[in-house]
């Protein structure tokens, strides 16, 4: 998919230029000096990005890149690839030293290839100063020590999504914020045959999100600050014992659930409380037959449990510039350009809430007032937890997430295959392997 100017993109360029005035007014900025990045003459940039959630995401993104290309008289080509493929393509690009100049990967990807990519501290410092600072999740994924190696561009969170009517019938106005209350709510829902359900199968997104919430909200973590495996802890065992009580309240079948299963079950009225991204809400809102269900739906953060805020590591877009690029200045300047209010705010609005901003100033974006129900996603990146919390992001944390170490620990306890202690010990054994040093 090369960049071509079609009537549509031309319209989008016009559109984003039109709204630029209002965006600049709404987004508060502080004075900051942009880094000196002389764009290389005749440069030609290639960028790789995960595919869109919604059509306007791609249109506005392409239009923004096109404007940058026109301003500097260079070429910019954007390719969109499937979510499952981006990690492998990044690895190949990094190892062969050939391919795209910029890859917008997921989460901790820049940490795996930190020797193959350019330092982005200058751009990140400038953007941070200008737009009110970077949010905690952006700092966790973007920084290695004091150095910025990735440029986070947005995150997609997974809050609790629930049916107002079902909760009311069970005697709750809102989901309780503590573990005991949440368990009581799920038990009450089970009694009125309107059960909750959380994925415990091999589901990359939903399974990991729930398992991470369960362990983190009890104060447990996979590895400590130094990166030593610390999953086999009293906090984890407490979390698993809690799950043993919680699991019987779920709708049957959650051990076999993939990423799509809870969307289907919730939409079909088989499950009344689950954890999911904003896509579930929009799929119902945009379907006339499901409008009533969308109206009955609310989204709030997961219970915070024993910590001070609900832990949820949103899926984060994280851009990196490769050293093999012949035009590193142009690449960095393009990323900076995309994060400026004139480009970023229209893009944020085009995404209607699917992606949430990494920079504080964009919390004022009009997108968050477009539908009161999506306001829970406004603060997705105000979160102190990341995949592989609370160690440094390494190959190990990425692999442990991809291999469902935490999910399967929880699933084995829920299914009764193992009790809490052996399950935590097994997770420790597997995690040790991934975090072994070479």
């Amino acid at each position, binding site marked *: 998919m090369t960049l071509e100017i079609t009537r549509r993109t031309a319209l989008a360029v016009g559109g984003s230029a039109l709204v630029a005035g209002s965006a600049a007014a709404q987004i508060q900025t502080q004075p900051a000096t942009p880094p000196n990045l002389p764009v290389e003459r005749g440069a030609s940039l290639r960028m790789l990005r995960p595919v869109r959630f919604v059509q306007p995401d791609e249109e506005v993104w392409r239009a923004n890149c096109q404007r940058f290309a026109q301003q500097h008289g260079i070429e910019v080509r954007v390719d969109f690839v499937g979510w499952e493929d981006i990690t492998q393509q990044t690895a190949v690009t990094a190892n062969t030293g050939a391919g795209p100049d910029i890859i917008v990967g997921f989460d901790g990807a820049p940490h795996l290839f930190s020797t193959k990519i350019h330092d982005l501290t200058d751009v990140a410092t400038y953007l941070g100063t200008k737009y009110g600072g970077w949010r905690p999740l952006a700092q966790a994924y973007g920084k290695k020590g004091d150095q910025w190696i990735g440029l986070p561009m947005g995150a997609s969170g997974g809050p609790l999504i629930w049916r107002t009517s079902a909760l009311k019938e069970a005697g709750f106005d809102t989901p309780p914020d503590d573990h005991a209350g949440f368990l009581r709510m799920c038990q009450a829902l089970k009694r009125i045959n309107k059960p909750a359900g959380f994925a415990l199968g091999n589901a*990359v997104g939903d399974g990991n999100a729930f398992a991470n919430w369960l362990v983190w909200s009890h104060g447990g973590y996979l590895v400590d600050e130094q990166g030593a495996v610390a999953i086999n802890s009293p906090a984890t065992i407490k979390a698993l014992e809690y799950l043993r009580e919680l699991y019987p309240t779920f*709708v049957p*079948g959650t051990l*076999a659930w993939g990423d799509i299963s809870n969307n289907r*079950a919730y939409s079909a009225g088989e499950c009344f409380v689950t954890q999911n991204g904003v896509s579930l809400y929009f799929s119902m809102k945009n379907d006339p037959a499901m409008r009533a269900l969308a109206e009955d739906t609310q989204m709030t953060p997961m219970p915070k449990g024993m910590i001070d805020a609900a832990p949820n590591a949103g899926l984060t877009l994280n851009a990196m510039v490769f050293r093999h690029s012949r035009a590193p200045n142009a690449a960095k300047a393009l990323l900076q350009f995309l994060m400026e209010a004139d480009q970023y705010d229209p893009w944020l609005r085009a995404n209607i809430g699917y992606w949430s901003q990494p920079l504080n100033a964009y919390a004022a974006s009009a997108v968050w007032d477009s539908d009161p129900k999506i306001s829970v996603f406004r603060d997705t990146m105000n979160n102190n937890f990341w995949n592989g919390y609370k160690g440094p992001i390494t190959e190990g944390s990425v692999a442990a997430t991809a291999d469902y170490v935490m999910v399967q620990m929880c699933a084995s306890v829920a299914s009764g295959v193992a009790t809490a202690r052996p399950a935590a010990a097994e997770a420790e054994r597997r995690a040790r392997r991934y975090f072994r040093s070479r």
Partner: protein
Amino acid sequence: MSATTAPVWTKVRQQPGALTRLFDWKPFLIFICLLPAVGLLMTFLTYPLGLGIWLAFTDQTIGRPGVWIGLENFVWLAEDPIFWGAVFYSVFYTAVATIGKFALGLWLALLLNQHLPMKSLLRAIILLPWIVPTVLSAIAFWWIYDPQFSIISYVLIEMGLRETPVDFINSAWPARWSLIVANIWRGIPFVAISLLAGLQTISPSLYEAALLDGASPWQRFRHITFPMLMPILAIVMTFSIIFTFTDFQLVYAITRGGPVNSTHLLATLAFQRGIPGGQLGEGAAIAVSMIPFLVFATLFSYFALARRKWQQGESND
């Protein structure tokens, strides 16, 4: 007549050029003629296989090249209950599914060998499960086994036979059996059609002779059909065992190895560890560990099932 010296005509044999001589030299000619085939085999068979085996002895991950670590991957796997679970299920899956496929497939072949109306059409329909791309039938089974939206659960609940959906893939043993059923469904046509081909090569005169001698249907099957079918049975079984043991798509599309790793086959575990998990070396080690099983299965089929003694009666060695 003057004596003139008759022109001496000698057959001048052109000394062949060096190139011609080279091509006339048999060993070289053989080498040259084999080169394209050998090149293709080396590039597309030996190299990937060799690379896979080499990777199994390294700690390569997606993202960085590996170093030689000897048997470390295998030592780790030997202590890994998930790996042994996958070995167990691969063997169990292959054994049960193969028995099921051959029992039902042979039965189907015998039925199809009868004179039936619209025989050709029936045979074509029988092949359908085999023709449909595996991923499509796997997705169909995924829906059939869905914890919430299974058609079987729906029918049973509507008929008042059950109150809750059937647990097909939500716990270990039901999931294992469900996958085996799906694999048998998919594999029957291959076995049935291959055995049907074998059945049709058996000369009718043998059956006529047996009938004259007053043989019962069972005796005809036991002493004519079965021995005559043995050679093709051995080949088909070898292929079937290999296909089943290396199955990937059904399991990956329906359960992804879950719940809690109870339905991982060696192929799905190798993929899970190697590609999403990024541990290429370990994934390769799991894949390499399939080789002994496959070699054993192949040797068993060839040397045991294809023995003349088995085919043609006890005394004929």
